[in-house]
């Protein structure tokens, strides 16, 4: 089976998932992003003309503020023309199929699609459908993947920890429903992190999760013991309705990240969260705003990483 993300020259054609992404491409994106961060760390991020004359369509079938905004900023910094579409409320509710919508946008001469959809596999479907000149970036599909989030997380880890091969990383929370967790796991294992843990009650873990190459913990204290990186996941309120958890209070009591629990990790451990946070549900405010938190730098790095992804795709022949 061909890797649907690569073109015949082995270059990145679409970014759909971190699974099966060659490590050279992964590292290349992180290196490229580092170049943009140097630019970005001044007060003003300089515009570069790498995507001048290209049209980037942000098509979001599911609501998002942060991801869509950072993609928009990234595209504009690359001098692309950006069109934002919130389709959740327009075409599909009128009965238009996903691929009809895509065909219409292709007819408007899109060069790149940034897609978010509530169903796993939507980005793959679009990537298979569009002409070879068009690039697709998956900005989150169902429970499947959110590769740019994982890449910015990797960038953040590398920024603070320099290397991957000596790290112990814990991913805490609702892995079952999380596209972020899946993409993080694949990226971490590809980059050579020797120990990736997931920490959650059994109701929030998919079956056979260990086959993704992670160690499973149900106890928070044990799961955080001596880790270098704590990656928290968002817990959505509707999980209480599906009989997955009794209450947010009980969840916080056993799986919420407090200063006391964080003390189990290494003293220089960093705390990450993909946002938006539920303070007092999965993370205590004192940790979220504390010295070990790198949650806001993650957002800034997200712009650079998305610039790196877009310019990499635009460079594919």
């Amino acid at each position: 089976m061909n890797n649907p993300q690569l073109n015949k020259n082995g270059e990145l054609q679409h970014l759909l998932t971190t699974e099966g992404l060659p490590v050279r491409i992964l590292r290349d994106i992180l290196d490229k992003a580092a170049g943009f961060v140097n630019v970005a760390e001044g007060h003003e991020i300089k515009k570069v003309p790498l995507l001048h004359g290209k049209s980037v369509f942000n098509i979001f079938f599911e609501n998002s503020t942060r991801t869509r905004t950072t993609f928009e900023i990234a595209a504009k910094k690359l001098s692309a023309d950006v069109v934002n579409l919130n389709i959740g409320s327009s075409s599909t509710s009128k009965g238009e199929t996903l691929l009809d919508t895509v065909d219409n946008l292709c007819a408007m001469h899109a060069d790149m699609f940034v897609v978010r959809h509530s169903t796993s596999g939507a980005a793959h479907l679009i990537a298979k459908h569009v002409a070879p000149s068009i690039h697709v970036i998956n900005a989150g599909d169902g429970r499947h993947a959110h590769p740019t989030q994982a890449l910015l997380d990797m960038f953040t880890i590398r920024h603070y920890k320099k290397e991957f091969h000596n790290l112990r990383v814990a991913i805490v929370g609702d892995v079952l429903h999380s596209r972020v967790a899946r993409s993080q796991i694949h990226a971490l294992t590809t980059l050579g992190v020797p120990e990736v843990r997931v920490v959650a009650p059994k109701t929030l873990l998919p079956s056979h999760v260990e086959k993704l190459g992670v160690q499973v913990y149900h106890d928070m204290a044990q799961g955080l013991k001596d880790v270098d990186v704590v990656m928290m996941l968002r817990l959505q309120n509707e999980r209480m309705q599906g009989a997955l958890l009794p209450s947010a209070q009980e969840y916080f009591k056993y799986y919420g990240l407090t200063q006391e629990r964080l003390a189990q990790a290494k003293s220089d451990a960093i705390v990450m969260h993909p946002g938006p946070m539920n303070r007092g549900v999965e993370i205590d405010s004192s940790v979220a705003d504390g010295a070990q938190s790198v949650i806001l730098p993650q957002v800034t790095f997200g712009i650079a990483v998305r610039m790196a992804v877009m310019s990499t795709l635009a460079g594919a022949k």
Partner: protein
Amino acid sequence: MNIHIKNGRLIDPHNGIDAKQDVFISDKHVVAIGSAPQGFVADQVIDAGGLIVIPGLVDVSARLREPGYEYRATLESEMDAAMAGGVTSLSCPPDTDPPLDEPGLVEMLKHRARLLNQARVFPVGALTYGLKGAELTEMIELTEAGCKAFGHADAPLIDTRVLMRAMQYAATFGYRVWMRPQDSYLARNGVAHDGEVSTRLGLPPIPVVAETTALATMLQLAQETGVKLHICRISSAAGVELIRAAKLAGLPVTCDVSMNHVHLTEMDIGFFDSNCHLMPPLRSLRDKAALRAGLCDGTIDAICSDHSPVDDDAKQLPFAEAEAGATGMELLLPLLLKWAEEDKVALPDALKRVTINPAQLLGVKMGHLSVGAHADVCVFDPKATWKVEPAVLKSQGKNTPFNGYTMQGRVRHTIVEGRLAYSL
């Protein structure tokens, strides 16, 4: 009309025949095997040299999509597909729109099928009105209209008391109840086997226990009511084990499996191939091995195509949103041959699973070529290879996980009721 099929290798599993023998057909029936009856003059001679002559296939699950889903398939297109697949008798599930819950609908369907004069259609009637799982249908009238069994297709039947009463009522008259075991709550919103692939792809899962809990309930209710229970589309190793145990315990239970599940696993989903969105879901390699073992030891009685034509619009969607189902009648025979070859099953033994066994499940007199039997015959070339492509398939449904596969074994002639209905 007299037909003489000569020089072929005749395989009739029911009569234990596997030999080079001619078949003589007259007036809708087989009149002789081996040498011609006295005074027989053939109107038509079929030279089956190098070919294999078998009873027409009996497919216990083929959706024809009429009434109600004519945009997916019509009786005309699917009967053509049946002929091209050598399927001369088929049973269709009741999940049409409206469902097959009234004698008039069944009569109309049988009438339309008879006019086309191709495969024989034996509908499975709805067990409850509208497949809503609440009120019993008029099973006696439906039987008189032509239903051979009663089932619930893929519609949920949650109320176990309704299921028990339905079984009791059916048992009163000796009717068969056909059920696909799946607990609606455990399978809710699920689209793929709860395993490594669904975890990796983030697809909502259907665990094996969705099958086994429902199956255990059905087996106990069957024991309680004495109904002749047939389990449709078994998919898991644990499910096969439950049926094996029930059979050993002497329960009158039978079982079938879809051809897709004999050959494919969750891994075939690859990068969200919606052609592999099937119901029940494709399961693990271990489950596939157990299904094959169940076929070999007779735990599983029949193999069906589970033919379910789906239009492109309903497939060209993200995996979970795509409609479940695949076209299959034209692939049933070559895939059976492939299984027989892979598992070293003797051809007569393999062919039982698509001829006499399914005929007995339906309680019909087809599936064999005894003298005096209905002359439903399939003649195929075991060596011919062909590539599965949309343009080649007669079915209106072009979606199959086997798209692009090269198949070995191709139907050359299909005879229904003594009439040559298809030749290639």
